[in-house]
């Protein structure tokens, strides 16, 4: 509780410092808006309905990317689990996945899929597919032998064992991979929009920068940071509860 209060205090102090720095000219108003203006701009945006029009395509693409990452990652992970030979051949390559600057694929995806929501969904899901697949494998690897034996005692076949034993056991691990996939979906979609896209929040931020529209720029910035932080905090709390329930610390 004291920690939470301390953290809230830090946020408040930083905001006040920024406010003061901009108002007294230590930081140029052309570069950074004071936090009070950011909040006012965000409220105006929300009130006019513009915010929702800008955010709707982004959230749709993020949701699609998350769904694709989770479903694709589970299928890919199960495929690797079912074929040890395939797994041996490509797992070392997969383990370098975070080293790949995924945005380098974005122009290529635009070339192949056309400019629109599809390359955004693909770039948002690319990282997550692998993080979900690898976390599923990690969970499946850790299943203790006695649990597997007890499943055989119950007469469970391979499919029933997968469904009733292996997947439930691996669930907290998969959740961890899915959490990374959610963060990556926001990063991928908004980043893609920022670089090149017909619409969306990332595009609106880039446009606001090009048009020198600082209130819009910082209102949107505040919105994106708040939404993503709230989603990540929620997932983090959910994951922690599940891990405590399972004794994974």
């Amino acid at each position, binding site marked *: 509780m004291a920690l939470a209060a301390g953290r809230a205090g830090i946020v408040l102090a930083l905001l006040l410092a920024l406010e003061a720095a901009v108002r007294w000219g230590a930081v140029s108003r052309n570069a950074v808006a004071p936090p009070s203006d950011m909040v006012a701009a965000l409220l105006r945006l929300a009130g006019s309905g513009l915010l929702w029009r800008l955010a709707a395509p982004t959230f749709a693409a993020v949701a699609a990317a998350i769904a694709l990452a989770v479903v694709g990652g589970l299928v890919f992970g199960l495929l690797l689990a079912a074929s040890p030979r395939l797994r041996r051949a490509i797992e070392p390559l997969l383990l370098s996945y975070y080293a790949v600057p995924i945005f380098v694929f974005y122009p290529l995806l635009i070339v192949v899929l056309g400019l629109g929501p599809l390359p955004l969904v693909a770039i948002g899901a690319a990282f997550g597919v692998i993080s979900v697949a690898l976390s599923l494998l990690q969970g499946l690897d850790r299943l*203790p*032998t*006695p*649990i597997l*034996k*007890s499943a*055989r*005692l*119950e*007469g*469970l076949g391979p499919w029933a064992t997968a469904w009733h*034993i292996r997947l*439930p*056991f691996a*669930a907290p691990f998969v959740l961890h991979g899915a959490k990374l996939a959610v963060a990556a979906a926001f990063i991928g979609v908004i980043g893609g929009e920022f670089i090149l896209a017909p619409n969306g929040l990332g595009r609106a931020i880039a446009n606001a920068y090009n048009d020198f529209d600082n209130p819009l720029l910082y209102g949107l910035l505040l919105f994106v940071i708040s939404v993503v932080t709230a989603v990540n905090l929620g997932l983090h709390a959910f994951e922690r509860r599940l891990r*405590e*329930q*399972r*004794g*994974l610390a």
Partner: protein
Amino acid sequence: MEAHLRLEGVAKVFAASGRSAPVPALGPLDLEVRRGEFLSIVGPSGCGKSTLLDIAAGLLAPSAGRVSFEGREVRGATPPGLGVVFQQDASYPWLTVSENIGFGLRRRGLPAQAVADRVEEAIRLMGLSAFARAYPAQLSGGMRQRVCIARTLVTEPRLVLLDEPFAALDAQTRLLMGDELLKLWRRAGATIVLITHSLEEAALLSDRVLLMSARPGRIIETLATGWPSERSSDLLTDPRFAALTQRLWTALAPEARRALGLGSEAA
């Protein structure tokens, strides 16, 4: 009287892997478990006790010999009516205590009310009533093992194989759990086969004790304890208990030395 569980000429040799030669792990051995008895199998570490249990439960195919349960050959699958409790924690961390205990019953397609009734009774019997909705991670090791025992017993098996079920528990808890096991045995009237490395546990709990040799494990001696079925850890102070443990150790000590790679005249 017909044998409840019978092993004839059972042996297990683990196949060669890489450069290592084939490893004879068990037997050949013959074994007969009588209906309703409490039988313990004691042997030095690494003598193949757990392999024996896996073979008896149909989890592992023997390299030679045959296993029969209630007159029918055991092959490739665990026959109905045979329950197993493992040494390591096999509770399901994603299910609550009552869901864990009801897992096997639900798989058998019992009506929900019947499952709930039997699970509740098992929970009460195991002293887990306060933890019915807890997850295994919130329980102590001893309580988790009780969940596993309850999950097996609730399906009312006619024969229960227990593989060092109390190995992870402290000495006092082991004694109490042993008493509970005796009570359950008298109540349910099932046959019990307990695999253990503890001479005291075997001497205290069993009707008969089988002693196994060092690897590859064979049966070297069978001892009847002569206890009445109404017995408990009170026997610890009985002079017959000390004599019995002494006899077991005299027979087993050379094997234990051999398993450790010590000469027979060492010590």
